[in-house]
């Protein structure tokens, strides 16, 4: 599963993994803005940024081929729109859509695969995102696996009773059965949330997550911030200046 692999990667050991999440978020945001606003000499700029991302991937000891494939999840969607733009007589925009969306996804993938999600969300808290929302996101991520597994069990049970994809032809009864399954999943999730809440109260939950480690900006983090912010900007100035 996609997120399981990311979880493993994000717990790796490298200089990049050790950097403060805030400086990584800042670097990725600058990268995305530089890429999103680019128009001139786009193929060359994309090539240069791609090389930078590949270097960072290798430096972070993340399998390059795996990362490249995983960033490709945006390609089907982008390819449809690229084809539409091409049909509309604007192939350049189509190519730009493909390159920009792929590189953006790659950059975000690198951020997530070098930072465990709880740390990443704490990094976002420092940027002003509401804590309540981030806690909801963290709970969501935590129980994603649990509830998904339950849904998989239910799907397997339905299949074993003959609800296979082959017999999906507009069957009202089967539609109602699927709705019933979803309603049961809803009710179970609701009840589980109540149990979780009681368990947390019994452990004297203060209403927020107590951080286990405090975030500190070290000298290396500041250096990384400068490098990460300046690299895409300098590359773009150089490449656009060369035209």
């Amino acid at each position: 599963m996609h997120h399981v692999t990311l979880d493993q990667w994000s717990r790796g050991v490298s200089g990049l993994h050790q950097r403060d999440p805030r400086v990584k978020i800042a670097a990725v945001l600058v990268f995305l803005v530089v890429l999103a606003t680019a128009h001139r000499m786009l193929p060359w700029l994309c090539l240069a940024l791609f090389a930078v991302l590949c270097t960072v991937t290798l430096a972070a000891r993340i399998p390059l081929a795996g990362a490249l494939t995983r960033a490709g999840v945006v390609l089907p969607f982008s390819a449809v729109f690229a084809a539409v733009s091409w049909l509309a007589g604007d192939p350049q925009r189509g190519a730009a859509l493909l390159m920009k969306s792929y590189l953006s996804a790659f950059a975000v993938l690198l951020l997530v695969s070098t930072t465990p999600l709880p740390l990443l969300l704490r990094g976002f808290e420092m940027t002003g995102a509401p804590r309540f929302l981030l806690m909801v996101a963290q709970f969501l991520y935590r129980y994603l696996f649990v509830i998904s597994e339950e849904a998989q069990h239910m799907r397997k049970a339905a299949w074993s009773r003959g609800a296979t994809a082959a017999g999906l032809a507009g069957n009202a009864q089967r539609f109602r059965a699927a709705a019933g399954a979803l309603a049961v999943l809803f009710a179970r999730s609701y009840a589980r949330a109540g149990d979780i809440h009681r368990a947390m109260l019994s452990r004297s939950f203060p209403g927020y997550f107590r951080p286990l480690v405090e975030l500190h900006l070290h000298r290396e983090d500041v250096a990384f911030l400068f490098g990460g912010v300046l690299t895409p900007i300098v590359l773009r100035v150089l490449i656009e200046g060369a035209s």
Partner: protein
Amino acid sequence: MHIPDGFLSTPVWAALDVVGIPTAGYIVRVAQREFEDSKVPLLGVMGAFVFAAQMINFPVGVGTSGHLVGGALLACTLGPAAASVVMTAILAIQALVFQDGGILALGANVFNMAIVGVFAGYLPYYLWGRGRARRASIFAAGALSVAVSALLAMAELLLSGVHMPASILGVSLGLFAVSALIEGAITMAVIGALEAIQPNFPRPLAAARARNYAVGALALAALVLAAGGVVAASTAPDGIERLALDTGIAQHARTWIASPLKDYQAGFLGAGWPAQAGAGVLGIAMAGGLCVLIGRKR
């Protein structure tokens, strides 16, 4: 429809970040007041439920299946503010962990699906959820939430200058209509089944709450109309500029508004792309600042 990064032009994504992210921040505060901190697990687990619900296939037509999107179902069961928070959290996790939807485009996606989509979905249920048309209102809730989100996403893409031949536009509008009907049917069936399990699951519509949401409901109706208008306007090539030319805004706007981010360029940074990028960053900073202000605890 999750818009990835690189699809929207800078004015569109920056504007939607500035509008969408602080609005989401405000809704989070409203939901927090309603739900107190201790209910965090409920919203998180219900978000996980919406993710997992995609694994349950619903047979629709020959050999094809659809799945729940969830905005309207959550709005009818948890209330619109909480549903909006859950959808925002889902979109954030999808953008970060699954590369489904962009980070710069997160404001746009949150605006389309978590804010307008959820509230538009709540509107029919709020208006007719008590009467005889209850089942129809739930159907309309599901259909409307998906239709409005998809139309907004389409309008934003067109405004960003993604060209679409009329035939393809027609086909996509048809697909939107079909998926809206499917979502309506699924939402109606699931809520029906939920009521059979436990009658008080769908949120009872209390009269006291009604006045609060009446204003919001009106605003929503306006938004829905606006979304339709935007789509109609953007079928013309390069919609936003055409619209500006047609209405003569282009000539006046420059003299009326001398904002520091005029033309989405930070004037003091000079012209060209550093100015545009600077304006984008400033926009993000403004959105962040607004969030800090709004998100501060009472």
